């Protein structure tokens, strides 16, 4: 296995991305059904049923990062979608019409699989796909948690939906659901999520061996591969590399030292990924964490459907302000953060409309500075480089003042 030794997790990641999309296109070509699913859905059911699945959010992000989003956005807006609607949705709805992207093609779906733990917007988006493409939709509705913990009756509702969905999948595939395999998939998914979490946790070390923008890349795979052996191997491999780097005292970059450690709140600005990254790196700012490591740390006991329901409902975006505050405060401490960059993302109202209050509370609890900038996850038109640069520079000045004060004691 000499080859295997030389293979880095980054190489493997790129192979898996290609394999993921080719596999789905191949399945379609062979007449097998294809599923489109949301990013934090109970994929265990799909994996158990061995259904080829692609994730429109991943796909839209990939198109955005390769600067191809506008064509699809304009198509969707031409049909009447508002430029204020989620840009992942606009890119995907545009793609569903054009069905050809230079950046990456995906097969058209035969089934839709939607889970509202990330927002209610996906319900509207998938409803429209179902209506336009005339294909069935399986919905997991995960009530927003206004209480600190997930309420018991919500867990029962979600468990009921998982059971109902199993029946829907049996009807769709005309096959029996294999509960033994389901157990194995659950076990593997949990193990993969654990490696994802353990890998991203290495960023707690100072300097962090992890450059957070790399995490954005690996994220695509925790979305689509956490229930299979490839994904498990990838995240274990990534973890081991980060561990080795940390133990050798290596920082995030070869070309620069980590000066400041920040959290990035919200989704990346995919069309301006390198601009946003470079402006940070210029000042030695490493984005060491975000709310994402926990979003895919979906953990529960094998064969415990209620536990699984609860784990999926526990996503950060689906929690109340008090929980969110504690969560970010914990990140500030665990990752020794110097500051926070809040992305006021035109696409994501659910994240945005709690951001100001979280910012105030976290600042009060931790004393670290932060900035908010305007942008969008895939619409290139809603970002201003000049504004971003200025705000990052202001953040550096504030972080430096804090450091100075600490040095003086």
């Amino acid at each position, binding site marked *: 296995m000499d080859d295997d030794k030389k293979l880095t997790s980054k190489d493997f990641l790129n192979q898996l991305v290609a394999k993921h999309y080719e596999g789905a296109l191949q399945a379609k070509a062979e007449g097998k059904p294809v599923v489109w699913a949301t990013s934090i859905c109970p994929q265990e059911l799909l994996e158990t049923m061995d259904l080829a699945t692609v994730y429109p959010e991943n796909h839209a992000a990939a198109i955005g990062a390769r600067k191809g989003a506008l064509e699809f956005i304009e198509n969707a807006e031409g049909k009447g979608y508002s430029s204020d609607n989620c840009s992942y949705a606009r890119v995907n709805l545009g793609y569903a019409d054009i069905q050809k992207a230079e950046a990456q093609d995906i097969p058209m779906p035969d089934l839709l699989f939607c889970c509202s733990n990330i927002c*209610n917007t996906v319900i509207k988006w998938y409803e429209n796909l179902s209506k336009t493409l005339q294909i069935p939709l399986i*919905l997991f509705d995960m009530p927003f948690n*206004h209480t600190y913990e997930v309420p018991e009756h919500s867990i029962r509702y979600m*468990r009921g939906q998982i059971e109902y969905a199993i029946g829907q999948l049996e009807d769709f595939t005309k096959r029996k659901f294999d509960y033994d395999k389901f157990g194995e998939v659950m076990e593997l998914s949990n193990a993969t999520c654990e490696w994802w979490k353990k890998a991203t946790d290495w960023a707690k070390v100072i300097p962090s061996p992890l450059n957070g923008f790399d995490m954005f890349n690996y994220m695509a795979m925790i979305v689509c591969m956490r229930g299979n052996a490839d994904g498990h191997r990838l995240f274990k491999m990534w973890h081991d590399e980060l561990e080795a780097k940390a133990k050798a005292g290596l920082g995030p970059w070869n070309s620069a030292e980590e000066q400041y450690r920040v959290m990035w709140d919200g989704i990346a600005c995919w069309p301006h990924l390198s601009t946003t990254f470079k402006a940070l790196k210029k000042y030695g700012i490493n984005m060491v964490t975000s709310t994402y490591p926990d979003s895919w740390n979906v953990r529960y006991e094998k064969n415990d459907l209620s536990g699984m329901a609860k784990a999926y409902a526990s996503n950060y975006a689906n929690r109340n302000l008090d929980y969110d505050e504690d969560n970010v405060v914990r990140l500030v401490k665990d990752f020794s953060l110097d500051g926070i960059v809040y992305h006021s993302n035109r696409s994501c109202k659910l994240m945005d*409309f709690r951001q100001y209050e979280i910012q105030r509370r976290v600042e009060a609890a931790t004393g670290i500075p932060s900035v908010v900038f305007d942008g969008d996850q895939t619409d290139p038109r809603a970002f201003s480089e000049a504004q971003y640069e200025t705000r990052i520079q202001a953040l550096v000045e504030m972080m430096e003042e804090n450091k100075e004060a600490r040095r003086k004691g």
Partner: protein
Amino acid sequence: MMSNAVSIIQELEAIALSPYKSVMRTMKETGKEAIGCFPIYAPEELIYAAGMLPVGMWGGDTELKLADRYLQTFCCSIMRSNIEYSMKGAYDMLKAVIIPTFCDTLKCICENWKVSAPRIPVIPMVYPQNRRIDAGFVYMTEELERVRGALEEISEKPITDAMLEDAFAVYEAYRSAMREFVSVAAEHPEMINARSRHLIIKAAYFSDKKAYTDKINKLTEALKKESVKPFPGIKVVATGLIAEPPALLDIFAKNNVAIAADDLAQESRQFRALSRKSGNVIQRLAWRIVDQQGCTFLYEVEKTRGQMLIEQVRNTGSKGVVVFMMKFCDPEEFDYPIYKEELERAGIPVLYLETEQQMDSFAQIETRVQSFAEMLA
């Protein structure tokens, strides 16, 4: 008779135009304490059964300054207005508010409310989207029971099943009166123009439902006695969240465009679904949500809204559909491309108007409405 109708119309319009004053007066007249109800559907019957007054909270034209503490400018103006009012103290007469979380914005508003108006307790409520499967229906009844319990704590007395039955009967009478009113009003656009129609329906949110229903019934009776006159303008069907501000509707009246039927969340969606007769009141309340169709805030994979609008247009002899699009309302914005295409395929013209509660200029809207009327004439 005519003068009777006119005086009821004027009275209800005045109620709708001064929500604060109207609520204070209704509280005084009935001796009831008030509970605020956020859009889209709040279980008003539970509040009424508790001997309290449900009050609608659909924003308003207030200058937005304080709300910027919590919300970016791309938040829907109804919710920005509500947060603004809460911070100004305009809601201090409320004993509590119920905030159902039909969209991502409402989820956040519910959380922000805890800080923006700490003196007014919030009762969050989740209506299940998967409401047509057993687990969803059970969940909905559990949520309704939870809210019932919260209201019992606030009113400090139990809400008995008998009280629930009485309240449900009051609301059934109200809903049936409204269904009749909108159908009779469609025959009399010369008396009930677009603005009047909206204000008359809106007045219910600030009145005691029983007293309000009496007034509506009287108005409908008076209208029925009027002869049906030929209308020199055009009739349309209105859809969207809310048809406001009223100055917008003045433009309709001025151009002789009458609203013959609506699918507005603030108006007909509140009373168009018929109730089932079986089950206890909690179950009947849940069935009402299960049976509601074509509402963007309730998951519906078939998306029947377009077809429903087409039927409304045909049944009322309308010439087109007017979309009142509340800017930044994601669910409404997502429905639009779907029903727009269906309407166009059916040959029904659509007028799209983007609205906010704080509008300073109506010149462009005036051009659009007049052009639409010219196009259909």
